């Protein structure tokens, strides 16, 4: 079990609207292996298929070809076993449920009893620094606060695999850094595997063990960068020389991916 990869994507391609004028090659021949407890970020230009890859892993869509395995099982089985926690680009809170009840939703579906659910949701509220907002309705919170509740909901059941799609996009810089540190700590303690989509290079470098660089048209992986900043990151890490070096490395990989695209475009003409 432990030597199984947490996520194993092999030769996965995704074509939307195949055979119609609106055909989109969202992903082509993608291979990703994520080890248990590893933190992997996906980074790349808009429309390069990051969300699509995440949705493939989450079993929300099925690949046109190739295979997806999670914890040694098919993605379908992993979903049925409730191995996933998800946070989307949109917070996706339920307007008719209080903030606390939103956090408790995945726990309800797992059949936790009421007292246990309430205790956990309070714990999660404390974590995202919204301790006294449990009884509020989601639309009474700011956009960033809503996003924090959505993250709390994704973390609430301590899922073995956390899939996050730009979860911190709507947060201010300080809250963002705080949430990043908290996320790292939770994953450390619970040994959670994370696949994390982001547009921010420093965020990817700070959080990840590995950064996967993608490019568009068709969506594919162009680079994988080992970050190697170690497990014990703190505020000091952000001012490290090696931190800046890695940022530069990822930036150059991203630029390289785009230049590659351009060169190919010229050849095509």
């Amino acid at each position: 079990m432990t030597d199984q990869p947490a996520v194993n994507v092999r030769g996965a391609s995704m074509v939307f609207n195949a055979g119609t004028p609106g055909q989109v090659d969202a992903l082509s021949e993608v291979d990703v292996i994520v080890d248990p407890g590893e933190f992997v970020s996906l980074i790349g230009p808009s429309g390069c298929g990051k969300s699509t890859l995440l949705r493939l892993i989450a079993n929300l869509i099925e690949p046109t070809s190739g295979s997806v395995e999670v914890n040694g099982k098919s993605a379908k089985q992993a979903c049925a076993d409730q191995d996933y926690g998800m946070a989307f680009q949109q917070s996706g809170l339920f307007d008719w449920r209080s903030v606390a009840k939103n956090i408790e939703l995945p726990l309800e579906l797992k059949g936790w009893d009421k007292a246990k659910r309430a205790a956990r949701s309070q714990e999660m509220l404390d974590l995202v620094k919204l301790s006294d907002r449990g009884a509020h309705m989601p639309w009474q919170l700011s956009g960033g606060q809503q996003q924090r509740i959505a993250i709390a909901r994704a973390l609430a059941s301590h899922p073995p695999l956390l899939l996050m799609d730009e979860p911190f996009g709507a947060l201010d810089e300080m809250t963002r850094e705080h949430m990043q540190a908290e996320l790292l700590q939770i994953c450390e303690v619970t040994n959670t595997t994370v696949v994390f989509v982001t547009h921010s290079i420093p965020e990817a470098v700070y959080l990840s063990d590995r950064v996967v660089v993608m490019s568009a048209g068709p969506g594919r992986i162009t680079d994988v960068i080992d970050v190697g900043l170690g497990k014990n990151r703190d505020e000091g890490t952000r001012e490290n020389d090696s931190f800046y070096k890695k940022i530069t490395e990822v930036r150059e990989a991203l630029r390289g991916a785009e230049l590659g695209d351009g060169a190919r475009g010229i050849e095509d003409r």
Partner: protein
Amino acid sequence: MSTAIRRFGRAAWPPLAFGVGFLAIWELLVRVFDIQPFVLPAPTAIWSAFTVRFSEVFDQTLVTGTNALVGLLIGTFMGVVMSLITVRFRLLEELVTPLAVALNAVPIVVIVPVLNNMLFGTTSQVPRRLMVALIVFFVVFVNVSKGLRQVSATHLELMRSYAASSSAILLKVRVPNALGYLFTSLRISAPLAVITAFVAEYFGGVQNGLATGVRSSLNGSKDVTWAYVIGASALGLTFYMISVGLERLQRGKQPADQFT
């Protein structure tokens, strides 16, 4: 609380002033031009006819009101049950929904006399209640079905990532989402129920109800007719206000920008 009353007072005085002014001019015109009561009675005459015959008008209002209420409850219940069934079974939906939409365009009250003659005889209120239920059913069915279906894609994906069963999705996403649509459809169908109950009486059946009162008093002095009209207005307004109140109560839990 007192601010709520004051706000209500501020919102209420323009229509109130308009109503009082309108009645005053009406009264004046009838007196100045000496219009006969069987053409157009004065408001004071209507009011005195109304107070004299209050118990009679009240009884007939109760008859029509009961028909409307029973039909409204049955129609709402059937509409909700039917939309829940069709959301679970796709095939049934493709069968029923176009039919419901098409039937909705037909003025269905005209079959009341047929029901009277063929099925229930002329001593039953059932055909009238059936008509109300049918009309209400369509409104509720179409709206609640929409509410059950138009759920956010993110919510659905979230539930699927939790491996939620389709009945869990129904219970935790679709039904709560449809609640607002249900109350909106009630606001639309409540006055419709009163109108249908009223119109259905014109098509024969038992000799009671508000419309029957209006019709049978048309030969004599019109102030009695207008007394029944007061009853009908009061009934329609009551239904409307209760349904609006229910909708407000439900919307109190929703974000403000969903108010329309």
